[in-house]
């Protein structure tokens, strides 16, 4: 390994990067664009559910229940109707998601101690949102029912304590806002995609331009080329990381509870590995088009689907879970989320970091081998 040659490659690559102002601007704007796009698009929060209420009972008790819906931040009561057809039309035209029907004998049943019924109609075409909406509706009704029961007993002169009251206490993301865990994970995934793409063209371009032939006739060794190129793109990748962090903390107001230093160290380790990965892809391609597509495929898909940043890996088929074990983004997503939300230090993250170091080392070694084979 020659320091001089590695440095010469590094400087040359920096010249390429800075010479092409448009590509550079794009590379730096990419994390912002992707964060904004996916950060808002991937919001998993379900609130302001548009709701129609059909109150057949028209008593104080039924109005009480209606007020529970109106007062909830999860439901927006869009109006009151007098027949089922309006609810159906509302759902068919996507105007509403939920219809609440309070039957005629609602208050009578309540008073007499019978089970009173409330019908909740939910548009199930988006099953995820429907399930969440049903959960919210159920909890409103359950609360109401518990209060009503206690009132009834009190009314009859018996003093009963309310039934068991589970007090939930959510740690780390106390407001349960999805952006708080989506954005840190997204930062990790975006870095994987950018890093993979930044370097995926770098070797293929040299073959395409014929410059590879020239530098192969010099004493340059593959390891020096791989390292020099990686370091140059590392500068861009690290800048991207800083931009993504700033956007996450300022625009999305995600709490950052950990140490910047821990995040910086983990980011370095992760970037090295994924940048090597891009070079590895590039070294196997003779044209930039092929390298670009392969780079995209091998960073985008596993980054999004197999990193566990939105799609929980536990629920995937075993075979896919096994594949995800080798995806570096999976470990980095865990690291970034833990640093952001839990504020944990290196001590708790060394497992993931160790994997990333192993990944980077193996990919570097394979890339150098691949470059060596291409020479002859």
């Amino acid at each position: 390994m020659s320091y001089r040659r590695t440095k010469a490659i590094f400087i040359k690559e920096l010249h390429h990067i800075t010479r092409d102002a448009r590509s550079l601007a794009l590379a730096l704007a990419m994390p912002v664009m992707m964060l904004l796009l996916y950060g808002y698009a991937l919001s998993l929060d379900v609130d302001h559910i548009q709701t129609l209420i059909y109150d057949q009972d028209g008593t104080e008790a039924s109005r009480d229940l209606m007020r529970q819906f109106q007062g909830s931040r999860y439901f927006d009561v869009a109006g009151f109707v007098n027949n089922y057809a309006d609810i159906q039309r509302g759902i068919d035209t996507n105007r509403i998601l939920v219809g609440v029907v309070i039957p005629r004998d609602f208050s009578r049943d309540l008073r007499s101690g019978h089970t009173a019924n409330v019908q909740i109609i939910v548009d199930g075409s988006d099953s995820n949102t429907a399930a969440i909406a049903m959960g919210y509706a159920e909890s409103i009704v359950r609360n109401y029912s518990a209060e009503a029961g206690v009132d009834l007993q009190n009314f009859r002169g018996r003093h009963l304590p309310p039934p068991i009251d589970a007090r939930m206490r959510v740690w780390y993301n106390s407001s349960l806002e999805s952006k708080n865990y989506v954005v840190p994970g997204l930062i990790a995934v975006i870095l994987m995609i950018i890093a993979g793409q930044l370097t995926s063209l770098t070797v293929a371009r040299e073959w395409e331009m014929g410059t590879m032939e020239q530098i192969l006739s010099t004493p340059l060794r593959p390891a020096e080329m791989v390292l020099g190129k990686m370091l140059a793109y590392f500068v861009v990748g690290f800048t991207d990381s800083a931009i993504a962090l700033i956007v996450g903390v300022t625009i999305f107001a995600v709490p950052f509870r950990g140490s910047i230093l821990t995040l910086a160290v983990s980011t370095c380790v992760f970037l090295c590995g994924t940048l090597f990965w891009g070079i590895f892809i590039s070294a196997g391609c003779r044209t930039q088009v092929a390298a670009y597509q392969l780079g995209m495929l091998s960073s985008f898909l596993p980054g999004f689907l197999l990193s566990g940043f939105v799609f929980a890996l536990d629920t995937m088929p075993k075979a896919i879970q096994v594949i995800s074990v080798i995806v570096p983004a999976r470990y980095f997503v865990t690291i970034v989320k833990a640093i952001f939300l839990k504020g944990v230090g290196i001590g708790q993250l060394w497992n993931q970091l160790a994997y990333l170091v192993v990944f980077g080392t193996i990919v570097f070694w394979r890339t150098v081998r691949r470059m060596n084979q291409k020479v002859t």
Partner: protein
Amino acid sequence: MSGNGSGYAVEIRDLVKAFGSFVAVDHVSLQVKKGEIFGFLGPNGAGKSTTIRMLCGLLTPTSGDASVSGCDVRTQPEEIRRNIGYMSQKFSLYDDLTVEQNIDFFTGMYGVPRQRRQERKDYVLEMANLKERRGAATYTLSGGWKQRLALGCAILHDPPVLFLDEPTSGVDPIARGAFWNLIRDMAETGHTVFVSTHYMDEAEYCNRLALMYRGKVIALGTPEELKTNLDGHALLRLDTAATLETMRVLEGIPGVIESAVFGGGLHVVVDEPEAAMGRIRSKLAEGNIEIRRLEAITPSLEDVFVALIEAEERKAA
């Protein structure tokens, strides 16, 4: 610089390179002396580039041996790369970098010592006449400048052996002339220059030549040797009033190998010049064709190569 002191900068013995069933280089053997300008001639696809790339360690030979500066191409590619400068057929510097950035990059690649860097850079800028344009992006340079810059970048480490693969293709005649002056300067200062070309006029500048055709070296020697050795034949110049008619008559004359239109007359290859000239005179007199000029001439390299390649094709047929 040579490891074995044999006096040869390049030695090739029975070198073969096959790509599948296609034999690009077919048992080539030759030696290049130190300080020589060695020309490698032949049509496109003859195997010149493949041979050069093997000598530079960019391709592994299928069989045979080759050494450059006493280093074996199979076992010592790294030593070879330190001792050679290589200019590939296609311009292969970084187009988006400036002249100076390219020079600095290759200075780093070749590990030119710190105290010599400025001196080498000045020398190359001077040689390529690029002092004024050192800050210009390389893609803005015209063909001739680019070639000189490419040569400059290949000699930053002052290598004893230079491989130039068709360095002047696509460059205008004036720039070609200037480029050959640089090559001669290199040779005069003790460098060995191994240069391939398909320009016949450039072949005249070489100390020795190899003619390559279909993977084989079919002639080897100085330009003068090659011109006098027309495969044992001689060349006549024949001008008549009726060129095409004359060619038909010539076909039937014993001792006439072939004839070709050249300028306003014919170049005729014969085995015995004096006897053939007598037969041609009498035959043309029978046909009432007036002879304006008939004499033995020294063949040009082009005549020689055309004759050699045609002889090779007759052998193959």
